């Protein structure tokens, strides 16, 4: 079995070049044309962004809807959109536009944000680098995860869902290679409802779930 290669990553956020949205109609129009990286940033990269850790919702569109548009119905619906359940960013775009279009058809006046509270569209470059560290046996994995940076946790557990095999994190992929010994842990990892965890909480949960591996021989 090849050792698990611990990668690390760092996010560099930049403006997307799109004009900010002042109301829900403009938000819809920009989402319709923005690059997939913009959608990915506002839905999936929020745990790595410097922002308050416990917002009402995990994606930036839902947070904006609740805080700036004061539209809780829209915020709840957007907040329920799970980006990891969508097969692609284009699929996610369709779901989000459907939610917004539905809301636009319900409201009499288009919700708007006061000046200074516009929605700014951003994207990021993820710089991925090899930490040089390797995990060679299952029993070493819990401790290794406990020492990982937030960037490593993000890369191996969240960003991994986007890479082939799509929808699977790197830890499960590696543990799965140990056959029957690893199978219960793959299942345990699959059950983690990670969307609302901060990266620190996620690391703690991963260590907790994988704790029994410490005693394994392989």
């Amino acid at each position, binding site marked *: 079995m090849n050792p698990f290669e611990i990668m690390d990553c*760092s996010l*560099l956020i930049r403006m997307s070049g799109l004009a900010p949205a002042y109301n829900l109609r403009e938000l819809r129009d920009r989402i319709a044309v923005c690059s997939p990286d913009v959608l990915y940033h506002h839905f999936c990269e929020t745990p790595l962004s*410097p922002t*308050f850790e416990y917002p009402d919702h995990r994606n930036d569109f839902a947070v904006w809807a609740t805080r700036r548009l004061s539209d809780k119905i829209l915020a709840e619906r957007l907040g329920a959109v799970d980006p990891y359940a969508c097969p692609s960013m284009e699929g996610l775009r369709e779901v989000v536009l459907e939610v917004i279009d539905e809301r636009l058809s319900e409201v009499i006046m288009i919700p708007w944000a006061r000046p200074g509270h516009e929605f700014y569209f951003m994207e990021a*470059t993820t710089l991925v680098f090899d930490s040089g560290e390797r995990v060679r046996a299952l029993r070493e994995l819990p401790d290794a995860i406990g020492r990982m940076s937030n960037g490593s946790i993000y890369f191996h557990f969240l960003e991994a869902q986007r890479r082939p095999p799509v929808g699977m994190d790197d830890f499960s992929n590696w543990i799965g290679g140990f056959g029957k010994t690893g199978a219960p842990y793959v299942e345990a990892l699959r059950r983690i409802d990670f969307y609302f965890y901060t990266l620190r909480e996620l690391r703690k949960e991963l260590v907790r779930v994988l704790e029994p591996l410490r005693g394994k021989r392989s």
Partner: protein
Amino acid sequence: MNIQQYEPIVGIPVIGQLRRLGERLKGLRVIHVNSTAEGGGVAEILAWMVPLMNDLGLDAHWRVIAGTNEFFSVTKAIHNGLQGYSVLLKKRDWDVYQDVNRENVTALKDELEEADIVVIHDPQPAPLLELCTRRRGRWIWRCHIDASHPSRSVWKGLKPFVEKYDASIFSMCQFAQMLPHPQYLIAPSIDPLSEKNIDLDDHELDTVRQQFDLNPGVPTLVQISRFDRFKDPVGVIEAYRMVKKMTPVQLVLAGGGASDDPEGKEVLDAVMEAAEGDPDIHVELLPPAAHRTVNALQRIADIVVQKSTREGFGLTVTEGLWKGKPVIGGDAGGIRLQVVDYHTGFLVMTPEGAANRIRFLLHHREQCGKMGKTGRELVREYYLLTRHLREYLTLMYALVGKTTEHTVMV
């Protein structure tokens, strides 16, 4: 100063990540240029950033341009104009701006043209780029100012100097302007081991209490900031007076003047006038090196106030949160990123709003403790220098590699 000292505060993974980035940028020659060696947030940031970049293996340097009083009056006007204040700059003012940069370039030209990365901080040294015609590295303009609603004429005058840069950095998305190059977003940070933020013992706090004649039995409100109209110190006094009608309280307004800020005295005079006759208002003009005193005052505070009407990022808010204090902040600039209602403090827009929130906190002490704890963890995660340094190194790597791809494998 070395990065290892921060490991007990931020943890092993964070330090390891910085070391790995440093290895990949080993020997990269980086020069930071600004216009003041002391006073103000920029000088404070560079004082730790340059040595730590060197500790991580880069070849980093800090240069300060020299200027005349007239130059600093012009650049202060540019600064105010970028913050939205109505200012009138004549052709002669822009000439002074360029002339002083021309005088400075003589000494700096060779090393700036040879550097791999040049980071120009704020508008003062911005014209250096076009004066270094044989530059071979990548040039970044770092705007620390809240330029969300700049005076049109000032931005029109400044834009030709900054649009030729390879990239710019703003503290928040709201501050970014349309420019023909990538605009990156990097929030500033504080150094937890600096004199301004390091832990202090009770004896030192008592000494500062005595020095400023503060009553230990009365709740203390503290606003630390330059005497600048955008920090609204007079508004803080108004809020204090409203609170004092209902409950005993004392106020400290303390801050220094930066060497590039000629307006400070004017604002200080207005504050002294507003505070006159009240022995519980302590207005203190502190020397630039009074970091430990500032630290003590923030720790003495029951509530930290930063009622700015315009703000770049608001490092004094970060400092207050790091010391476990709830913060009453103006709903402006980077304060919005740090102060979250009912979690780390309250955002306010008026002296009345500030007074109400202060009264609420003074009567709900258990909330103060909870908010203080949340605020400290928020700062540990996102607003310490380690995160700031990581983002600079990542940007430098991306710029040297000339990439804006979504994922870059190193």
